[in-house]
């Protein structure tokens, strides 16, 4: 833990001038003919939790996957506009996706640990990046599991298969796996929607903890959750950003009628 904090203190100094990690300018995205994201403009702040809410199919996941270019796995995708990560356009030809995704981690809706031991799950990232030293790996694994608040639960069974864990534990393993490569930003796509209430609570607490060190973007269909954990919230509707502001303001006094309708449950 200490090291993470140390590192991040350092980072803070460097980037204090601008506290924006992502700047999204006029982003458009099509799945074939289907215009899924329309003129998105949005800045994501450092060391904050940014929530994205909106009805099903409005483009939340698409937006998240565009940030780390995972969306390119769908062959028919076309994009226009710009996403700049710390000043560099992620769509630049010589910006390798692997590099981008190393600094921008992602946690998915359904826990998706690899069918390996807990240890190997966490060590996966460091290993592919060339870290082979056993001692270093041990340290990273412990640090990451602690960071994901699951160390105590699994420290005695590091070499058992991750599939033996409960869903909530698996999700925290996935978060730990993500922490292991010391990302700068963490994207989370409905990370608690497959979890029971108690596990949800744990993950929510973890997110609040993590924002000390990481910038977090979280998609959620649960407005209470957005309200509980996020600093800013964006409301998406049919591929557009309807409103993006401080979470407290968005939920108490939204500017847009559609936002109001949505948060009061009139549709969605």
């Amino acid at each position, binding site marked *: 833990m200490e090291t993470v904090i140390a590192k991040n203190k350092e980072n803070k100094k460097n980037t204090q001038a601008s506290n924006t990690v992502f700047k999204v300018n006029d982003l458009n995205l099509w799945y074939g003919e289907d215009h899924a994201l329309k003129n998105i403009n949005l800045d994501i702040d450092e060391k904050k939790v940014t929530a994205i809410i909106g009805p099903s199919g409005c483009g939340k996941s698409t937006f998240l996957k565009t940030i*780390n270019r*995972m969306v390119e*796995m769908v*062959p028919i995708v076309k994009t226009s506009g710009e996403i700049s990560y710390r000043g560099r356009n992620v769509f630049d030809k010589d910006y390798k996706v*692997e*590099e*981008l*995704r*190393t*600094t921008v*981690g*992602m946690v*998915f809706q*359904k826990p*998706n*640990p*690899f*069918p*390996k031991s807990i240890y190997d799950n966490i060590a*996966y*990232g460091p*290993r*592919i*990046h060339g870290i082979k030293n056993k001692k270093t790996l041990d340290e990273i694994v412990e640090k990451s599991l602690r960071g994901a608040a699951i160390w105590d639960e699994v420290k005695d069974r590091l070499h058992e298969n991750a*599939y033996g864990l409960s869903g909530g534990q698996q999700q925290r393993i*996935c978060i730990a*796996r*993500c922490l292991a*490569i010391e990302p700068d930003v963490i994207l989370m796509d409905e990370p608690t929607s497959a979890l029971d209430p108690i596990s949800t609570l744990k993950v929510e607490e973890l997110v609040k903890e993590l924002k000390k060190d990481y910038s977090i973007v979280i998609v959620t269909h649960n407005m209470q959750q957005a309200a509980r954990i996020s600093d800013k919230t964006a409301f998406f509707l049919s591929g557009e950003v309807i409103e993006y502001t401080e979470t407290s303001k968005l939920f108490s006094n939204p500017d847009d009628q559609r936002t109001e309708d949505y948060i009061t449950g009139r549709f969605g």
Partner: protein
Amino acid sequence: MSQKTNSVSVRQMIQSNKKNKGSLRIIESVMPKLFLTCALISILTTFGILFTLIFETITFFKEVSIIEFITGTQWFPFSHSSPSYGILPLISGTLLITVIAMLVAIPVGLAAAIYLSEFATDRVRRIIKPILEVLAGIPTIVYGFFALGFVTPLLKNFIPDLSIYNALSAGIVVGIMIIPMVASLSEDAMSSVPNAMREGALGLGSTRLEVSLKVVLPAALSGVIASFVLAISRAIGETMIVALAAGSNPIATIDVTQSIQTMTAYMVQVFGGDVGYGTTLYYSVYAVGMTLFLFTFVMNLLAQYISRRFREEY
């Protein structure tokens, strides 16, 4: 009841139709039995094979000691004066072909599987898979001529000492024939690894290669290995390619440039000359057939065991 439509109520019609439902009831009880009979035929086939092989093999062992058959190192059934029936050279020939074939089929097949499952676009996959299926559907006799008429002369350019009938050329072509099988079964296993697994790895900055080798392949390992084992079984049982291209020299050797004989090639050799019913030679084919059957049977069981026992739970 309405006057406009002169129909009675459907419910009444159904009710009245129920009376002649007797035949329906009979069909209903006959059909399962009929289909069970069909299913039993496959069991009967297995028993037929076992019965045939065991029965004639026993006759063979009345004339030739089973000990000689299993432990003998000489296979020379054609000798009039002192035939010897040690199956070892045939097994050795079979295994030699199998090893060569696997050295070709496993790397190439697996690489193709990885390419198709992890690298290729949908379009490429849709074009290439049917072509590979065509490759798998070519009759083995065609491959046999290909081995003899093309691969052997080609290899002879590099290996002047190569016998015209040799294990190497036959083994390579058996391998080529099996590539599509390894590729498509492995590809199936790899494609069934959930995408979430790939996304997880890609999201950590993995390259495609790392995803394939460190996540997908381990997750699909049992299916992939099962495909290898099935391929081995197929290579062991392959007949026409080896009958045409590997020669008929039953010697135990690991020199791949030499002519050897496999179990299947021996069977074709004997029946190509239609031996007389009832001779020792005739029964020897069944003994060899039995051995061949046991080899492939064990392989098939192993493949099933592997894919069942180690079925991945993602």
